[in-house]
């Protein structure tokens, strides 16, 4: 955790639609605070413009005959509301940035995940191959 080269972290915001309960003034205030938070990060080169997600969509799962269901649903606290990529040297700095998110005062969570330099599948396959090579072939 002592490297200084910027890494990328994905911040995932999860909330229900808490902002619907706010008054006009409260909404205006939190919007301005959020805008300032992201604006400062972008100006400092520590974040890229994020995306807000509509509270609709679909989920696809299953094998060859895949199933499609609507959702996620607006009322879910687990639904992802938006994402932001931050470019900072350490996970600690990414956490500090997440803690400063103004919306958190109304609840919800921010998940912070390091973005991989390579596909984790390939890394896993390589590690397994190395392990296999350490095991004598003829036992």
């Amino acid at each position, binding site marked *: 955790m002592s490297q200084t080269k910027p890494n990328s972290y994905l911040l995932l915001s999860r909330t229900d639609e808490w902002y619907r309960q706010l008054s006009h003034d409260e909404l205006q205030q939190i919007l301005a605070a959020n805008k300032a938070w992201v604006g400062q990060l972008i100006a400092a080169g520590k974040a890229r413009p994020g995306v*807000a997600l*509509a509270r609709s969509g679909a989920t*696809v799962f299953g094998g060859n005959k895949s199933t499609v269901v609507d959702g996620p649903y607006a009322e879910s606290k687990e639904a992802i509301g938006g*994402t932001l990529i931050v470019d900072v040297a350490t996970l600690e700095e990414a956490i500090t940035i997440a803690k400063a998110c103004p919306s958190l005062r109304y609840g919800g969570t*921010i998940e912070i995940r390091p*973005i*991989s330099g390579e596909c984790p*599948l390939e890394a896993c396959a390589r590690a397994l191959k190395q392990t296999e090579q350490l095991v004598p072939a003829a036992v």
Partner: protein
Amino acid sequence: MSTPNKNGYLIIFRSADWYKGLSPEQMQQVADNWMAWFNRLKDEGKCAGGNPLEREGKIVSGANRVVSDGPFAESKETIGGYFLLTVNSLDEAVSIAKDCPGLPYGVRVEVRPIAPQCPMVDELAAKENLAHA
């Protein structure tokens, strides 16, 4: 299902550590297929980018800013990565999601329209309209 959206779609891959049961060769095959899928979508101008995520990280919660660990490795809901699609309809985004090479291994693909602006801005506008009505 077919509401047009010119802002694109985020497709999110969710799963537990599904590939841990595969042989290195199988894993490499799925990884190659996934990369080929991504590159094809980019070549077709349907994908603006994407990233895999490490199965680690932290969660910051609520007004008290409580910091906690995952779990990211075991949960079936864990997000493993995402693509940003530049297609115009949910139908097309879903049809792309159906080609995900991880689906036979239990990966779930969430397809979400990108909002033109923060939904809080919409809420504020709605409240202002109400006040002027």
